């Protein structure tokens, strides 16, 4: 089975740590957590940024900028992962706005430079948006999505694992899926390719 996203929830300074080993690193989990968050989210964030700006070098710059900004406000952000996705989306849209003419002129060449087809880039944006929405939703709902669409469990099995009734699992899953649909529409993503 493929590895799961959102497995390593970042630990912010001041938050209670689940680590059992009480070493020097677990005493100060904040600074280490942002580095760990970078390690775990680097690829997804690069995909997401590339899906919007369509250029890898720009995507790297945006991800770097987002992490540097997050580092400055690390102690004040409740949801660092969601904050990162939202920040990269804003940075990418600002970049597109500021370099609109250049983007239009180099659009054809950019697609060939990055060797990624437009359909894949659009889907990367859509997946990144879903990840942003998943990062911002409650842990229980995200767990429900994981059990259903990553582990492919039936409603009955999910009910046994979560303690919810089968009908409640169906109702919650319906609500979460509809929330994702609304979020994608608000982000301007329509169609299968984003």
């Amino acid at each position, binding site marked *: 089975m493929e590895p799961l996203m959102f497995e390593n929830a970042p630990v912010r300074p001041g938050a209670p740590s689940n680590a059992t080993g009480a070493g020097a690193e677990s005493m*100060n989990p904040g*600074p280490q957590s942002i580095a760990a968050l970078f390690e775990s989210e680097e690829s997804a964030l690069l995909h997401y940024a590339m899906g919007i700006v369509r250029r890898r070098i720009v995507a790297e710059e945006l991800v770097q900028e987002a992490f540097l900004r997050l580092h400055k406000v690390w102690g004040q952000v409740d949801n660092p992962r969601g904050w990162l996705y939202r920040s990269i989306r804003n940075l990418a849209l600002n970049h597109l706005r500021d370099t609109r003419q250049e983007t239009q002129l180099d659009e054809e060449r950019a697609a060939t430079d990055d060797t990624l087809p437009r359909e894949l880039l659009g889907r990367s944006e859509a997946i990144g948006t879903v990840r942003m929405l998943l990062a911002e939703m409650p842990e229980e709902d995200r767990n429900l999505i994981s059990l259903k669409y990553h582990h492919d469990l039936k409603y009955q099995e999910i009910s046994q694992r979560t303690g919810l009734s089968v009908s409640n699992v169906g109702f919650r899953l319906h609500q979460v899926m509809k929330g994702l*649909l609304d979020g994608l529409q608000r982000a301007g993503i329509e169609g299968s390719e984003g």
Partner: protein
Amino acid sequence: MKNDENNQGTPERISAEMEARIVAWVSGDASPAEAAELALLASANPAVAAFKARMDAVRSLASEGISADKTPLRMSESRRAALLRELGSAAKEAATATSTVTGPSLVTIQRRQQRERRWMLAVAACVTVGLFLSMMVPSYQKVRSIAMEREAKESVPKAMMGEFKSRDAQKREAASVNFEVPPDDREVVLAAPEAESAPQFNGSARYAPAPASKGVTILPVELPTVSGGRLAQAKVGSGNQIANTVAEVTPETEAAEFKKEVIMPKENEGPSVAVSDKAEVETQAPIVLSPFAVRDAEDKGSYRAAHSPGPASAPT
């Protein structure tokens, strides 16, 4: 979520129960019979078909989004190393700061600063208001008193101006002549208070000493007329008594003594006026009515005895 799905126009809204059934169908949790029924509904109802297509797309995206990337991307090595170095060095600085500094948190400091700022603003506002009031109240009182004085002056008719007395005039009147009428002696001497504020007319004002007070209140003196260089008479009234006085002026000695002859009215007769012979004799020398000189504008026309009639030294 294909774009061509939107070309069918705005789909009808379907019920929440139908949506939940479609989600279960898309997720593979519908029974075969349920799936067949929903497929039939979707072919008949475009709204159901559109919702099913959208849920298919969301399920696919959610499945990919919840899983890690199949083709992981990494930054360029130089950029990655620089970023990690930046985060790592900052991490070390943060760790050092955390281990050494045990002061209040940033939020606490900010709140404290905000509180202090609010207090300072309140104190500054109070000081400003206090200064403003201390500047405004005295000037307001001054303006008000001036306005009241002006109003009082304007409210008095001009014809009554002669009756108007200033405070100084009232004080002088209060300290005016006390006449004592001895009950047994029928001679009344015009007396003045001890001349601590007695006006000096060419340094020659002298007053007759006042006798001991016997509790008789003397009304102010009214001088009717002066004719022929002679002080004709002065009326002094006290209760039922009317005293007529005659001032006698001796120019050689300049010692003025006011002698009064009190003549009690006879029954069924009004008050009579007697003029002493001495006063008639002294007609050769000029008589100056200096004791009744008008010195205040308020006393204009009132002719009240500001002080006891002293000797008439003639101011030239």
